[in-house]
């Protein structure tokens, strides 16, 4: 033996990447335990907190090695999750650990996104289709497309400068509501445009992960994620109501 340090570094990196890209606690735990088992370490204990992981690894029941790993940020990236899962599936007892660790630490390649222009257009198309589903007409469709396209571009630009995410959400919803409100001022279904243009900010991952964690017995993580979802919803509501106070609430019921 003697490679416990490499193994524990690899395990904590796996956990960090999984938490960072939006996996639920059960997936994180089972991923780390599975890869430890494949590397020949049966005795692993874990503590997974919302932004920290603690790993205890025992070598033949004699010495316990432990490591604390902090997770810097949380966003949603399913392609990276899929890549990490398939990397875990390829681990064998004689895998080169340093190579695997380097592959996991290369975050720009691991979390490669679709091109930014495609994502902005798709945000517009998705929100605009929502407005048709709720009974808007083609004019409302066009307004929603423009508003959410602008909003998504602004969102990406602000998040790149590392502003506080809640402040970013307030600013983005404020802009979206102003744009769609001005364009649909005396239209009878103006409220549909505003309500569906902010949809790409809805914290669905936080809420679904929260219920997932609560049902599977990870109460702390579930509560924290739920509170995060509620805070994002309030940030959206604050942004919309700030803009509506400028435009006049009575015009948009």
């Amino acid at each position, binding site marked *: 033996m003697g490679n416990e340090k490499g193994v524990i570094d690899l395990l904590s990196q796996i956990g960090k990447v999984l938490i960072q890209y939006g*996996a639920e606690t059960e997936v994180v735990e089972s991923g780390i335990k599975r890869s430890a088992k494949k590397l020949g370490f049966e005795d692993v204990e874990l503590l997974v907190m919302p932004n920290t992981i603690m790993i205890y690894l025992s070598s033949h029941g004699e010495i316990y090695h432990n490591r604390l790993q902090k997770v810097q940020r949380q966003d949603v990236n*399913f392609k990276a999750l899929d890549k990490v899962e398939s990397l875990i599936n390829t681990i064998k007892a004689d895998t080169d650990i340093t190579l695997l660790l380097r592959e996991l630490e290369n975050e720009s390649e691991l979390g490669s996104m679709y091109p930014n222009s495609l994502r902005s257009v*798709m*945000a517009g198309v998705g929100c605009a289709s*929502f407005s048709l*589903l709720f009974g808007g007409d083609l004019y409302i469709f066009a307004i929603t497309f423009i508003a959410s396209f602008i909003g998504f571009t602004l969102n990406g630009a602000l998040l790149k400068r590392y502003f506080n995410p809640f402040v970013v959400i307030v600013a983005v919803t404020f802009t979206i509501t102003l744009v769609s409100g001005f364009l649909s001022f005396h239209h009878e279904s103006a409220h549909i445009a*505003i309500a569906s243009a902010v949809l790409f900010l809805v914290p*669905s991952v936080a809420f*679904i992960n929260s219920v997932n964690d609560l049902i599977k017995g990870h109460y702390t993580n579930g509560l924290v994620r739920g509170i995060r979802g509620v805070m994002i919803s309030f940030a959206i*509501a604050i942004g919309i109501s700030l803009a509506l106070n400028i435009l006049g609430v009575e015009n948009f019921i």
Partner: protein
Amino acid sequence: MIQATFLALLISVSFAILFNAPKRSLLPIIFLGIVAVLVRKQMLEYNFSLEFSTFVASFAIGLFCIFFSSKQNIPILVYAISSSIVLVPTINAYKAMIGLIQISTHQIMDQELIVHSLHYSLKTWLVFGAIAIGIVLPTQFIGKYRFKIL
């Protein structure tokens, strides 16, 4: 019916791309989104409540997710989140928020307004809960994910 199917397709594809879902999971996500919208639409036509029909639709998503996830070896979350976006009750949430703003600014004696905004906000939270629980519940039937209360 055709319009709803087409819109569900557009919505689920675009949100899957926003969440950066892998390319081979796009077709199952489209299928799940269409199933969810059609199930909810049919149930609303038979006069079930919005909460119950959303629950059944997201339960259907959860069941199909298990199948796709075991076939393609991708976590359940990837399918579930991208396709359950179509069920989010935005208009109710918006009406609840507007009602609360109106109450707090001037119309304090308008009891109808208070009851309306309370109704809409309750409906929003219940529908959100129905989506989340409907997706999570089917995964508890598999032995691998089962969790024992003491």
